[in-house]
């Protein structure tokens, strides 16, 4: 048994020592002085790359991560500088961002909102990331964007095509470079009218979730404006792998165009089924039966193989573009990894550079200052021609590519050919049509 002697002097002494002990360290707490969340104080700055490393979009995620690593290398002055040489803004010096070396942390979104938010929160709370970027689905993008708004860091969206991201779910701290469903519809419709005529009957198969809905609506509205008629729009479960039972009724419906509002594995399967059913050899209403895929990606074209030949779709960027920016990016990506980048890689790389540039121009990492620098920012040389970051909804406006599956591909990467570059005027819309509140920027802390 220990014996405790409680004297008045003893208690006072212990109390004073304990008090001093507790008080002393708080004097050195840096956090209280910070003006915004995770203000970088050392010689480096941490960015968070939150991409799907497992799950259905792991391929896109892996390519996004490669792009980010390349971007960090270029920002820190390594490699050939990539798009920094062709970028119209010359604020980036290749000495990091504002002289601070760029470091990064990675996380796995698993293409699930919960996992993505957990990973983003750990980057913000534990690793002190001042910006989060990446993602390969709209559900994740919307979830992480809201989180970043609350936490007071910038979110640079990766591959997300739904109207919602900068539409009804837009946030002041979130920015998107990728195009959206509306732009796909607006870009595709004239090409479809030119090639297939204006008196077509369309049948939609739509993946049964938000992205599918907005894409179907966009394509419907713009094709109907051209004079097409929509015969039916059928929703298919996201987890469906065999679409035969959905394809069979298409022929009985009297439709002569099939629109597949599917992405990733869904699109690969539905297109393969449709081609196997011989839809494309059919003659309906004295016209050739046609298939349209609103959102194309090279990785999907690869999955569908020869079935994509001659099928129209839209895409954000393609490595075969011949402007200086695209050539520079394809060259430095190809040198490092040995194959051309996908559109997911391109948009992520560009987002990282745009963020760094905005910080340089603002002279601060403060999300509000960065947001101000990106607002209505006009730039060029990033592979999409002159581009505007619109202030009302933080959406980039640029030319949209309409592509077609190549008839005679020369390599496993050369699967799509560019049919037309739809000028930006044609795909611009009024910021208010999707509703939503941008709110005001939140610097946190």
């Amino acid at each position, binding site marked *: 048994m220990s014996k405790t002697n409680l004297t008045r002097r003893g208690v006072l002494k212990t109390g004073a020592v304990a008090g001093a002990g507790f008080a002393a*360290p*708080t004097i*050195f*707490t*840096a*956090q209280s002085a910070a003006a915004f969340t995770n203000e970088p104080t050392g010689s480096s700055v941490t960015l968070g790359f939150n991409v799907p*490393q*497992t799950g259905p979009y*792991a391929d896109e995620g892996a390519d996004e991560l490669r792009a980010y690593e390349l971007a960090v290398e270029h920002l820190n002055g390594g490699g050939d500088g990539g798009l920094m040489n062709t970028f119209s803004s010359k604020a980036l010096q290749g000495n990091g961002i504002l002289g601070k070396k760029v470091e*990064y*942390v*990675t*996380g*796995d979104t698993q293409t*699930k*909102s*919960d*996992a993505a*938010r*957990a*990973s983003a*929160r*750990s980057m913000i*709370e*534990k690793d002190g990331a001042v910006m989060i970027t990446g993602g390969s*689905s*709209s*559900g994740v993008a*919307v*979830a992480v964007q*809201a*989180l970043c*708004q*609350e*936490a007071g860091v910038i979110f640079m969206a990766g591959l997300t095509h*739904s109207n*919602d991201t900068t539409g009804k*779910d837009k946030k002041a701290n979130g920015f998107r470079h990728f195009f959206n469903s509306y732009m796909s519809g607006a870009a595709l419709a004239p090409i479809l009218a030119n090639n297939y005529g204006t008196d077509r009957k369309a049948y939609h198969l739509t993946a*049964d*979730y*938000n*992205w599918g*809905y907005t894409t179907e609506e966009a394509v419907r509205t713009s094709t109907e404006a051209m004079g097409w008629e929509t015969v039916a729009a059928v*929703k298919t*479960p*996201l987890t469906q792998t065999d679409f035969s039972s959905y394809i069979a009724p298409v022929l009985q419906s009297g439709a002569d165009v099939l629109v597949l509002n599917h992405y990733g594995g869904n699109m690969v399967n539905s297109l393969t089924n449709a081609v196997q059913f011989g839809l494309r050899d059919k003659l309906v209403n004295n016209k050739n039966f046609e298939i349209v895929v609103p959102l194309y990606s090279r990785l999907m074209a690869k999955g569908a193989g020869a079935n994509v030949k001659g099928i129209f779709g839209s895409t954000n960027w393609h490595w075969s573009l011949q402007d200086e920016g695209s050539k520079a990016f394809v060259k430095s990506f190809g040198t490092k990894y040995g194959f051309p980048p996908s559109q997911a890689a391109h948009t992520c790389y560009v987002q990282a550079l745009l963020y760094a540039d905005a910080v340089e121009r603002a002279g601060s990492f403060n999300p509000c200052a960065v947001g101000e620098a990106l607002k209505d920012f006009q730039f060029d040389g990033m592979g999409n021609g002159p581009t505007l970051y619109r202030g009302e909804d933080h959406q980039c406006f640029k030319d949209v590519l309409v592509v077609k599956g190549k008839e005679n591909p020369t390599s496993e990467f050369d699967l799509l050919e560019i049919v037309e570059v739809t000028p930006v005027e044609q795909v611009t819309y009024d910021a208010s049509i999707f509703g939503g*509140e941008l*709110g*005001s920027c*939140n610097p946190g802390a």
Partner: protein
Amino acid sequence: MFGLDKKDTRLLILVAILVALAPFLLNPFPEGSAMAQFNAGYPDLMQRFVIFGIFAIGFNILFGLTGYLSFGHAAFLGVGSYAAIWMMKLLTMNVIPAIFVSVIVAGIFSLAVGWISLRRSGIYFSILTLAFAQMSYSLAYSVLTPITGGETGLQPKVNDPRVLDGALAEGATPKANLFGLEMGSSFEWSVGGWLFTFNAGYYLAAVVMLIAFYMSIRIFRSPFGMMLRAVKSNQQRLNYTGLNAKPYTLAAFVISGMYAGLAGGLMVAMDTQVGAERMFWTASGEVVLMSILGGVGTLIGPVLGAGAIKYMENILSKINKEILHQWFAFMPDGIEDILVSLVYPFIGKGWHLTLGIIFMLVVIFLPGGLVEGGQRVARLFKRKKPAEDGPDGKTTPAE
């Protein structure tokens, strides 16, 4: 104390101390050191530890006591979450009504599901619950998009009604709070190289978890708990003695559904967002893994299992190649590369593989889960005393 015997009181106090000191215990490495990668003492992960602890404790009341293996518990978690977020959108950002309603709604839903599923036992019961959970997931993902937000989920918006709250200040975003105390607010204390974060939300969740844990001890030790164990050991014999087991199993099912709803409500309170993936069948499988990894039918086991899995999911998955190279940088180049390529498959996106291996090892060598591992270690140190049996309420089959 509180109607518990000495051993259980000790366990409860031990858990309370661990939970209260978690910000210290989980942050053993100084900031900026190479080992800081393994620190888990940041608010998000600490909250997840206790919330999934609640989820697993509840699951264990059903699985551990009655032996009914439900493969659809994530549905109750999801339903609770949706209920909570709607409370926040319609009523108030205060977390109390949200948590309360999430428990009630999950209870009602689990009553309906349990009523049907409990007509069968064994594998048929598991499949029925799995079917219900997948159905809920699909409904939430697409058909019910107007109420669930579908793929993009639900979040509180600035222009939601929130009838009990005053108008938001210009430019402010709605934040979950407890009578004004924001769930996201933290007090940071840096001592030397260490930074300890004391988060309001975490401590709220921790208190709720302690209450849930206490209730689970009471259930384990009650006559009701004894009946549930009887169901597990031999339901046929129970029926022959003239007892109807259904009300007992249904009660256990609803209680564990309410625990899941509570966890769902807390998840929303800590991080105001719901997505349908929360109800996916893998989420239901995860809680089964947690229980088995920690120790089925033990009191503390599921909490340990939940902690272990969430730790791996959040810490291991964030280690990338770059970090490995830093660790092994002191080695000669060739050996460094070999080591990195040897370790790489098990970290980052390979964390599932590591989890799988650990799970296999535990099931093969420690059938009683991590708790059994702890007991074996403890026994090494006090070999002289004869091993006491059943300190954890584990049951041995009657025959």
